[in-house]
């Protein structure tokens, strides 16, 4: 009997692999940076689904269920990546031997440097994400951030919890958190200005 159940579970997952694996692969590719990680995530997702198939009661679409399993795995990945890339305090806020990242944007008085000074042009961000070229520029800009900043951003927006809980999960203080986001967003904005808005 058990064997029969296992066989049918197996054939269900087999079908899901055929139907959903490309979608899951693309989703993970969009959320993480290297292909090896992505392949592991897809594999782990199907294995986890297979092992807990009895918890799937058909209340949701198989696709929704598989994506929720995968999203948890993606968040685990970013939580770990954030922690392993954050070995000391200085890596949290981008202070290195070459100085604080903020020095790229502000002079010694703390005033905007000319090329970093925000202009008054309004970007119509609403439609930007329909543009594949823009998305690939944004994706490259994210990949150029220090790994822990990129992971903090991915984690923050995927997790949809309030800031205090995110700090707890990442094991950082509130000021660490907004200082990371401050620096990461300055850098992202500069990268988008250079590679998109100016061209």
């Amino acid at each position, binding site marked *: 009997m058990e064997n029969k159940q296992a066989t049918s579970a197996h054939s269900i997952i087999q079908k899901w*692999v055929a139907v959903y694996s490309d979608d899951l692969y693309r989703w993970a590719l969009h959320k993480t940076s290297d292909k090896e990680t992505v392949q592991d995530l897809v594999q782990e997702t199907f294995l986890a689904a297979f092992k807990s198939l009895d918890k799937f009661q058909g209340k949701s679409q198989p696709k929704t269920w598989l994506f929720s399993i995968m999203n948890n795995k993606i968040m685990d990945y970013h939580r770990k990546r954030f922690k392993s890339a954050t070995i000391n305090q200085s890596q949290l806020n981008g202070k290195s031997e070459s100085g604080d990242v903020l020095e790229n944007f*502000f002079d010694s*008085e703390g*005033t905007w440097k000319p090329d970093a000074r925000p202009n008054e042009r309004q970007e119509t961000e609403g439609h930007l994400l329909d543009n594949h070229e823009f998305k690939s520029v944004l994706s490259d800009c994210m990949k150029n951030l220090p790994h822990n900043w990129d992971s903090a951003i991915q984690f923050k927006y995927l997790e949809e919890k309030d800031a205090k809980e995110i700090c707890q999960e990442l094991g950082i203080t509130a000021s660490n958190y907004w200082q990371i986001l401050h620096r990461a967003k300055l850098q992202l904005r500069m990268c988008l200005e250079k590679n998109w808005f100016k061209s």
Partner: protein
Amino acid sequence: MKKLMNMLMLSCKKASGLIEKKIHFSLNPIEKLQLFLHASMCNACKSYKKKSKDLDSLLNKYIHQDNQKPDSSNEFLPDELKQRILKQLEENK
């Protein structure tokens, strides 16, 4: 008076930090006043405030965006990996 002014005057560096902080946490009354005074005098930081919020919603949409439309990507899971997954499932039967 001068001391008070100095305390209330922020640099753009600090003001832009408080703009970020305000998105995620609440500011204390002094920080609120500091930011209000700075933003009322500094056009660059006023623009930054708007841009920072825009970037926030852009990132939020980007990260949640359904990237499943076939035209958005021609990436497919390599066949050998599909085979590997199936094989692994077979072993876990």
